């Protein structure tokens, strides 16, 4: 075993092991409406992460006594495929997956107009097909696209990214290796247009001024991701419009 901080995560030239600058995102791709039978769906790739999200609802709650009289309940399941990590993951929900389900739900909830659909449930299923650090933030980013794709009214999209610390320096969007051997990880989710934070976690030690600059770093990346979310949502409709008007 190698203790934290003993692994070189920065190269001689100051870049990270995968060749990124400290404030650089991994390559990403977001698609909406990828599943035919879900009300809304999204797929995200962020570096090696591959995550599929399906949204069903608002729909009737079963068993019925669980329904809330004044609003819709959001139910969220984050689960990792057995083949998503190097060592086979047991298919049973782990403590970590149960916790992440709750954390992701709470990051999405403030964005949804739940009071418009009393006594219903909105189900969000997150399936991690391949994991490499930062799945919770990628899941939130994809889940909010899936919710919007389902036509569910929202205050804003939710976009998330993590800022971590490696070799004493802040680094954006940690990958699996950096997460494991780095000195800290701080996932942040925001409603970018409203400027509100819906998730803020951190492990490791951060100085107050580090937190402030981490937040700035995250904000910049969130703007970039938000634009991709927006494009993913509009794509289907813009394409049909171009196809129809182009032929006529």
């Amino acid at each position, binding site marked *: 075993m190698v203790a934290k901080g003993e692994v070189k995560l920065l190269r001689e030239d100051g870049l990270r092991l995968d060749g990124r600058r400290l404030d650089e995102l991994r390559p990403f791709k977001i698609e909406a409406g990828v599943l035919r039978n879900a*009300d*809304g769906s999204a797929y995200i790739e962020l570096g090696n992460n591959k995550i599929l999200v399906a949204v069903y*609802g*608002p*729909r*009737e709650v079963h068993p019925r006594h669980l329904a809330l*009289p004044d609003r819709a309940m959001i139910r969220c399941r984050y689960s990792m495929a057995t083949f998503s990590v190097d060592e086979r993951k047991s298919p049973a929900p782990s403590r970590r997956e149960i916790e992440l389900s709750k954390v992701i739900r709470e990051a999405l909830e403030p*964005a949804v*107009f739940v009071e418009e*659909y*009393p*006594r*219903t449930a909105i189900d969000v299923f997150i399936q991690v097909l391949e994991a490499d650090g930062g799945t919770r933030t990628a899941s939130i980013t994809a889940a909010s696209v899936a919710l*919007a*794709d*389902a*036509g*569910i*009214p*929202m*205050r*804003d*999209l939710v976009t998330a990214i993590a800022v971590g610390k490696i070799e004493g320096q802040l680094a954006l969007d940690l990958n699996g290796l950096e997460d494991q051997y780095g000195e800290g990880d701080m996932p942040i989710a925001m*409603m*970018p*247009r*409203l400027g509100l934070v819906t998730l803020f976690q951190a492990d490791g030690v951060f100085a107050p001024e580090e937190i402030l600059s981490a937040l700035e770093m995250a904000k910049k990346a969130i703007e970039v991701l938000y634009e991709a*979310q*927006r494009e993913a*949502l*509009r794509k289907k*409709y*813009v394409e*049909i*419009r171009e196809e*129809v*008007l182009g032929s*006529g």
Partner: protein
Amino acid sequence: MPIYVRPKDITVPGELLAEGQYTVEGAAYILNKKVIAKSIGIVEISKEKGRKIIKVIPLKKKYIPQAGDKVVGKILDVGVTNWTVDINSPYTAILQATEVLPRPTDAAKIDLSEYLDVGDVIVAKVLAFDFARDPLLTVKEKGLGKVTRGSLVEIDPAKVARVIGRKGSMVKLFKDMLGVELIVGQNGRIIVISDDKDKELLAVLAIKKIEREAHVSGLTDRIREFLQARLKKVGD
């Protein structure tokens, strides 16, 4: 008081549409004097009494029952005094036996499945709905009741208005060009009735085309051309 969007723009949730005093309709909300979109939709800007109205027409939605709506339902379950009806909504509807049976009837002695059974399709009207209880239906008016023939098409409830058209123009187009009768439920279910199976099928295809292209302008003309082209092919 600037408006940041143009009519026909496609919005996403959170998108800033305008700042200032506007009347807001559809899938948009106001926060700190800012008009913000709630869902993916199309912008519409109109003017009334010198005041601008900003409207976002959603591109996708779930059907929420409203008193007076005509809906197409499927019988889910037969009870002792009522039927449970799926109306393609987060809320399942109830049809009371008294709405169907001739008045003085002892409900206890009658098997309701003789009137409507599981799987039957009905055209009904929403009597009342207030979110606290499931919506109530009635079939007591002209044109309502069990459907015995035709094809059932399901589309997104957000596109229903386009299938009906301005003052029913689209429904009229189907009737004039194909001789096909459309019963359009507000819940996104449409019954297509014709004696000619081919025309019925063509109408179904046209409805699917409307659903797909509803957000692109010139819809009625496109559907007319589509029907004309297909009819010609059949004629040859």
